[in-house]
Every structure is written in C-alpha cells, then in structure tokens.
C-alpha cells in the first residue's frame, strides 16, 4: 500500500508540467472550463482601457451603427462604442461580484461562528436572518437604495445585506455539526481554547462550504447589480455597467438589438463562469453536497 502510493507520487512529480495540467483539467473539467472563461473575461476587464476607445465619448454622427469592422459591437443612440462600454462594464460587474462575495463572506463567517458558539445569541440572530431572508433580495436592495443617494458603494451594501443570511446559515450549520465531535472535545481537553481552537479546528472546516457559497453569492451579486441598474436603481447612469448599457438601449431595442444582447450575453457568460467554478469546487470540496445535486 505504502509502496504503491510512493510510486504514483514519484511518477506524478516526474510528469512534465503540461501533463500535470492535463490531468488536473481531466479530473475537474467544470472548474477548468469556468476558470478559463473567467480568466479571459478578467483579462478583458483589466485591459479594457488599452483595448478600447473611451466608453463615454459621444459621436452623434455614428449613432446606432450595427456591429462592423470599425465598431465591433456597434454603437448606441449617442454614438458611444458598445465594445468599449461592454469591456468597461465587465470591470463594474466583477468588482461588484467580488466585493459582495468578500464582504458578505466575512460578515457571514463572523456571525455564523458566533451563532454556532453562543446558543443564547443564536436564537435572536437567526430570527433576524429569517426575517431578512423572507424579503426578496432585489426588493430589499431596492428599498435600501430608495433611501440613499446612488453610488457604487451603496449598491454593494444593498446587495450584501440580503446575502449575509445565506452565509450565516452555512457557517452556523458547520459549526453546530462539529461542536460535539470527539476531536473538538479532545482538543479542548488538551488545552486548546479560544482563538486557537477557532483558527485550528473551526475555521478550516468552514472554509470549503464558505468558498462554494461565496462563488454563488458572487454570481448572484453580479445578476442583482445588473438588474438594479437595469431598473434605474443601481449605479449612477454615467457609469457603463452592463445593467446601465442595457437600460439605455431599451427604447432602441427593435432597431438596435445589439445594445442589449451583447452586454447581456457577457453578463450571462461571466455568471456562467463563476457558477461553473462554484459547481466544480462544490463537487471537489464537498462530496456529500455533490451527490445531492
């Protein structure tokens, strides 16, 4: 048994880099597909200022031009280049998605651990979480935005609040499930307490489900941001986010469908990439969940 594992390990170490990548891709085709797609989209987003013209530059002489060699994705009613706007929109979407996932992940993790640890606080916090979850997330975000001045930060906060309970639930259930485990008891008996216990035994267990949940929240965050901007309740209209581009193309949809379909497809591809990563990671990190879906 030992000899066999040593053999394969040695073999694997000798494999050239390319072959090792090939094995990794064959084993996790979903993660690989998602990662490649996402990498392409992220590079386009980062390189947007160098790849495109100014996304805000108006030129009425070029208004509503269909996709062509000069305007790859066509232009909108102000003659703005949709290719430039779409690539810049990727930046907004990705920033919102990642920030929402990170913030709700951190807040949810903290609250989830507190709930799992302290039974007295648990009851109150979970009732509040149930209440927040009863409100459809887009409506909650809309309500928050009604009461403040528009801006990217407000949109992010408004999306984070309805997403936090989902993280709290996942983390709390992990903490509750490991509470009574013998290795936790023995760690406590061995003198591991407080922060050390948390860092060494509790956090590592929450990590896998937390990462999986974070990818889904990232995807949901991007969809909600686009929906809010589309409704006119998202980021300020002068920012070229995908939702804003689509909203501004609405009245011209029948004569210039590219202004809506192209940013829409980009949004779907980005969400698809993140979801594929999430599905792949879930199958890899949490086999129990994988079997259920």
């Amino acid at each position, binding site marked *: 048994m030992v000899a066999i594992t040593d053999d394969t390990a040695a073999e694997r170490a000798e494999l050239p880099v390319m072959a090792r990548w090939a094995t990794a891709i064959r084993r996790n085709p979903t993660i690989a597909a998602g990662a490649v797609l996402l990498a392409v989209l992220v590079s386009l987003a980062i390189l947007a200022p160098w790849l495109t013209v100014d996304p805000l530059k108006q030129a009425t002489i070029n208004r509503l031009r269909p996709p062509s060699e000069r305007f790859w994705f066509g232009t909108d009613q102000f003659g703005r280049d949709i290719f430039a706007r779409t690539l810049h929109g990727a930046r907004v979407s990705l920033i919102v998605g990642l920030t929402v996932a990170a913030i709700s992940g951190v807040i949810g993790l903290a609250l989830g651990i507190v709930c799992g640890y302290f039974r007295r606080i648990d009851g109150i916090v979970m*009732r509040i979480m149930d209440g927040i979850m009863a409100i459809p997330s887009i409506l909650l975000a809309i309500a928050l935005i009604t009461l403040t001045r528009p801006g990217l930060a407000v949109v992010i906060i408004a999306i984070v609040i309805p997403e936090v309970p989902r993280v709290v639930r996942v983390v709390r259930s992990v903490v509750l499930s490991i509470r009574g485990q013998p290795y936790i008891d023995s760690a406590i008996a061995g003198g591991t307490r407080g922060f050390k216990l948390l860092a060494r035994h509790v956090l590592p267990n929450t990590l896998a489900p937390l990462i999986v949940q974070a990818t889904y929240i990232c995807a949901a965050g991007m969809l909600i941001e686009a929906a809010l901007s589309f*409704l006119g309740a998202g980021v300020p209209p002068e920012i070229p986010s995908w939702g804003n581009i689509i909203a501004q193309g609405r009245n011209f949809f029948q004569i210039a469908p590219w202004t809506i379909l192209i940013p829409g497809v980009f949004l779907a591809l980005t969400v698809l990439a993140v979801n594929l990563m999430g599905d792949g990671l879930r199958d890899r990190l949490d086999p129990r969940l994988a079997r259920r879906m």
Partner: protein
Amino acid sequence: MTAYILRRLLATLPVMAVVAVFVFFLLRIAPGDPAAIIAGEDATREAIEAVRAKLGLDRPILEQFALWLWRLAQGDLGVSIFSNLPVTRLIGQRLEPTVALTLSTLLVAVALAIPIGVVAAWQVRKLADRLVMIFAVLGFAVPGFLAAYVLIYIFAVQLQWLPVQGYRPIAEGLWPFVEGLILPSVALGVTYMALIARITRASMLEVLSQDYIRTANSKGLATRRVLLLHALKNAAVPIVTVIGIGIALLISGVVITETVFNIPGLGRLTVDAVLKRDYPIVQGLILVFAAVKVLVNLVIDISYAFLDPRIRY
C-alpha cells in the same frame, strides 16, 4: 396534525415581526436625511418638512412605531407620498397582472420542468440527460431580462407571432390575455425551470436506485408506470420544496419581467415607486411580498405531511 399546523402558523409570526420592524427602522436609520432624499435634489425647506411630517418622522420614534403597528394591524399600509392614495388601494389595482403572470409562470415551469427532469433521470448520462443538464446550468446564468429580450427578438420582432409587450386583462378575452402572457412567463420561468428540472433529476436518481424500483422493474411493470407511479411519487418532497423556494425567484423576477414587457403589475408599481422614492409604497410592497413568501413556506411545510406519511410531527 392540527397541532403541527398551528405550531407552524405561530412560527411565522416572529418572522413577519422581524420584517415589519426591519422595514420600519430602515427608514429611520438610513444615513443622511431620508426626508431630504425623498423630497428630491432641489426641494425647498418647506417641501422637505412636508415629507418629514407625512412620513411621521417629526414625532418620537416609539410613538411612530406604535402608530404604524396599530395601523398595520388594521391592514393600513399608509399613504403614497405623491398620489396621496392609500398603498393598499394602489396594490389592489395592480394585483391582477402580477397574479396572472406568476401563476402562468408557475404552471408553465412545473409542467415543463418535471417531465424534463424525469426524462433526464431515466436517460441518465445519455444525450437527453446531457442536454437537460446544459439547459440547467445555462438557466442559472441567463439573467431574466436577457431571456426576455432574446424571446422578444425572435418571436415578436422577427417572427411576429406574439406581441412585443403589453398586458390585456382577462376581461378583454381569453386569447389576447394568454397571448400577452406567453413570452413573459417563459422569460420569467427560465431560471425556475432550470431549478426544478435539476432537483427533479437528482431526486428521481436517488429513488431509482432503491430496491423497490428494481423489484417493480423485474416483475415486468411498464417503464412509464414505474417512473411515474413508483418513482416520481416518492421523489416528490424535494421537488415540492424547490417549487416553493423558487416562488421567491419569481417575486424578484416579476419586477424585471414586468418592466421589460411593460405589464402594469406590482413589479412596475415597485419600480415606479423607487424612481419617485415613494417609500411608503416600497415599504408596503416589501411587507406584502414577504408575507407571500412566508405563507408559501408554510404551505410547503404542511404539504410534507400529506406527501410523505412517514413524516410525523
């Protein structure tokens, strides 16, 4: 059974209480001066004070809360800032299109997604199953408005089979009513269908691996009989759960779909209220939507007891 239903009914009270407290205090703890924001950019001092008085923000907070709760208990959701009409009446006027849209989506989605999921589980790892899974993965990624615009582009603009947008009440005849609902229902239902199909497939796969299915197959029962009578019935609990959970998706989606298709329902009411910053309407709609969601969850919980007699409480 009755005791269980009563207990579940009581458990919805704290959730609704949290929702009520939440929407009430949201307005009070919002950063900056909500009265000034609602009144608009270049509002005069008097206009801001008028909004403040209308929202009751000039009175002690506990008094406001007590008054608000008292009115809420009587079914009074307050008065719109701009039209001065009671929020309940505004909601009542816009109810029909939204109920029609939601129900038709529910119908279309369930009628299509469950058979799709059953076929996928039956044909597992074959072409049909692969196609269903691709649809399921895409269904989660495609935003509602993209699905809506693609459908409009194909079926309304290019083929001209169906109207581009608009809503006809059922009183104006059945076909105009149905015609206007087809595209919005499919657009709204895409993600929902993906969700139901995926769970149906997973739940069916689990049941199909059971011994009694092998017995049913080996004693020569027709495949259709085994699939529908023996398997689907036992796979029902997760499917019903997800149909219920998905109602939340529909509620959020209604806001988008009604905007794209210009349907004068609660979704449009929400968007118009947000754009005018008419907070009492937004507040009332949140309460109504949350109540619907809580109620649906209650119905699902109770339905378990009927679907699976082994579940005892």
